[in-house]
């Protein structure tokens, strides 16, 4: 959303109170402290492909020009956190570096995203909620599988647990609310739906997502390099496999 300078002059209070500053132009970025050793850079106001592209471009530039004192950074849907050592550098230095980097033209936006294929055994013991999801939408289980498998998804960020990818692109027709009662234990590899989101549980954990299948792939393996199967910016496709194929891939 753009805001002309003259409008800002006329309606300063309304603009400032209703919209955070990062709405004002594509070039200026908002930056605020996050604890004593963090700077949170806001690059967009809402989740979407545009926000995702801006976050990716900003991170690519961060990789090229590591600001002094930066320890690591964490990209999210619309923001990037820069973590630094507050004993060595000041917040203002990191903020200035972030603003300088954000204003530089990016030259890395044309990288072709990696396409990752995730085999999924849908339904049965692996996807105990498949029938519920189908019933919720008044379609067959096969329709749910076809729609889930037919989609192409973007990894928008990692969070929640090591290697857990928040995926954008779930077909609206199978978006389903979370289960009323969460499960105490969801097995690792379970593929679930929660609202407009879909994702794969990397570890056995409690969870309330509707489980429609399971992948034999390890989403996170600390001795593998890189340890997470998915990285922000990847494109993902799910591919249906039989229980037999699941067993084979599981043993491999």
């Amino acid at each position: 959303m753009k805001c002309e300078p003259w409008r800002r002059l006329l309606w300063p209070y309304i603009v400032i109170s209703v919209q955070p500053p990062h709405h004002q132009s594509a070039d200026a970025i908002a930056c605020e402290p996050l604890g004593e050793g963090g700077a949170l850079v806001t690059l967009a106001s809402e989740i979407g492909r545009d926000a995702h592209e801006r976050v990716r471009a900003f991170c690519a530039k961060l990789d090229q020009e590591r600001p002094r004192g930066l320890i690591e950074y964490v990209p999210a849907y619309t923001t990037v956190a820069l973590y630094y050592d507050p004993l060595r550098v000041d917040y203002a230095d990191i903020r200035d570096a972030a603003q300088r980097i954000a204003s530089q033209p990016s030259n890395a936006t044309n990288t072709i995203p990696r396409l990752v294929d995730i085999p999924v055994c849908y339904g049965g013991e692996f996807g105990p909620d498949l029938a519920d999801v189908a019933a919720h939408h008044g379609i067959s289980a096969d329709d749910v599988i076809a729609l889930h498998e037919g989609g192409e998804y973007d990894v928008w960020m990692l969070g929640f647990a090591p290697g857990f990818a928040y995926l954008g692109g779930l077909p609206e027709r199978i978006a389903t609310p979370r289960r009323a009662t969460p499960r105490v234990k969801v097995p690792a590899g379970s593929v679930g739906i929660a609202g407009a989101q879909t994702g794969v549980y990397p570890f056995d954990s409690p969870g309330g997502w509707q489980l429609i299948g399971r992948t034999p792939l390890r989403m996170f393996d600390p001795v593998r390099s890189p340890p997470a199967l998915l990285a922000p910016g990847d494109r993902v496709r799910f591919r249906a496999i039989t229980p037999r194929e699941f067993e084979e891939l599981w043993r491999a």
Partner: protein
Amino acid sequence: MARVATQFVVRSGGLQTTVQDRGRFGSRRLGVPLSGALDPYALRIANLLVGNHGDAAVLECTLRGPVIAFENETLVALCGGDFAADLDGVQVAGWRPIHVEAGSVLTIGNAHRGLRCCVAIAGGIDTVPVLGSRSTFVRANLGGYEGRALASGDVVPLGRPGADALTRIQQLRNKAARWFVDVRDVYGAEFAAPRLRAYAGAHAQLMRGYVDAFFETEFTVAPASDRMGYRLSGKLPAAEAPGGLVSEPVVPGTVQQPPGSQAIVLLADAQTTGGYARVAHVAQVDLPRLAQASPGARVRFEQITREQAVQLLRKREQDLARLSEAVRYKFI
């Protein structure tokens, strides 16, 4: 010189004893929590006392400690909460280096005051680092000793003690330390009712009256509190958190306000991103106080600015540097 311990055997694991260091930096973008000792002050002093590097890994005990046996001599230090502890039946105290003779058994019992204790051993715990850290993150079976809490029968490897540690082992063999580190100002007068310095977070300003209410409320640590975070119950007025927040990065010390009357202080094992309102941040220098609070403890917050929190952190670092020098002089 006699042989120095290169491992120890766990006779009993205690309630929840894990290997921890200063944390797993560099993998948070993959969703891997920082982890590390919940009481980083205790971790650093314990390492400093036995002559270890500040990044060395220790055992973090919770509520009831382990029983561990050493075949060869070494040096240990117990820092954090006050735990009942003995070496072959002879009582030992915290916040000082303790010489362990070959063949001794160290028994760490229940916490008298506080909740957690860091046990540093000369050379540091030498399990294989995972993603650059030895810290255990139990929920993902990551790091530490097989990614889990210690259990009886485990044989835990120790690193080679450096020159500092070897000198101290030799000196303390004949003459026990008659001094200890005084930590009263770090933990405050009361383990059971910590006051935590904190400053308002990004979303607090958007919530009418919230900041004042937050700093006036007395909270109680709820039972559902662990290494991920502490849930604090309090008579907060029904705060209207801004709706439709997008998940954003969070850090240990971030105070989140989900709908309802409980606030959550995120700790070392917290997830890397969160979608609740960020209403405050606890000053890092006061996280050890919270780490030592048990369920039922009464917690109050004292408002400072973020700049003051950074100043406190710098001052803490200077104090640690001075302490390190002072300890060094004890062994000249």
